[in-house]
């Protein structure tokens, strides 16, 4: 939802909010991988008869 009328602002370096976002994303990916390695079922097989 990029607003066409607004002017982009200049900043330097990676902002803190991006670092926080990357850490949270990394932790979520690690959690996902750990659950997969732990053998937790995912998808339709989880509820099959």
């Amino acid at each position, binding site marked *: 939802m990029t607003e066409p009328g607004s002017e982009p602002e*200049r*900043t330097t370096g990676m902002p803190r909010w991006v670092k926080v976002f990357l850490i949270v994303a990394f932790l979520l990916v690690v959690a996902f991988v750990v659950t997969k390695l732990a053998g937790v079922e995912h998808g339709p097989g*989880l509820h099959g008869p």
Partner: protein
Amino acid sequence: MLMSPGLRKLVFAVHLTLSVGWVGAVAAYLALDITAATEGNAQTLRTAYLGMDRIARYVIVPLALASLLTGVIVSLGTKWGLFRHYWVLISLLLTTVAAAVLLSETRTISLYANVAADPATSDHHLRALGSTLPHSIGGIVVLVVILVLNVYKPKGMTRYGQRKERERSTVLTP
């Protein structure tokens, strides 16, 4: 290539409609998903699974793909660009991941709907199907994050954006 102000507003209006529609459609889907997760009545479960399938295939998937496409067009047609600002880049990344997970999840939803539509499926089997609740809750959280990013537009330029800005400044100030 930047779009004219009139065209920008038109494309932005279309993009906004599709994006907000996507969130709304996922909310409607979530209501049926919660029903599938909590309801014990077999007839209600059948109806919920069939509804989830229709909403996902004919509303959510088209809205998601169209929103992704128009988002890219709006970004490329304005000064924001696609890779210049972190909030645009992260929005693109999250939207792409959300659309990919959605497309993958659609197969599961169709499977549930086919089982639910089969008159031979027992009530016990139907209740054992479960729901797609983790995905639908995760999906709506991601969409809200994207929406917040797009409304607040937090500051921060990528290296590519900074380089482009320097090049533009050099051209403008001889």
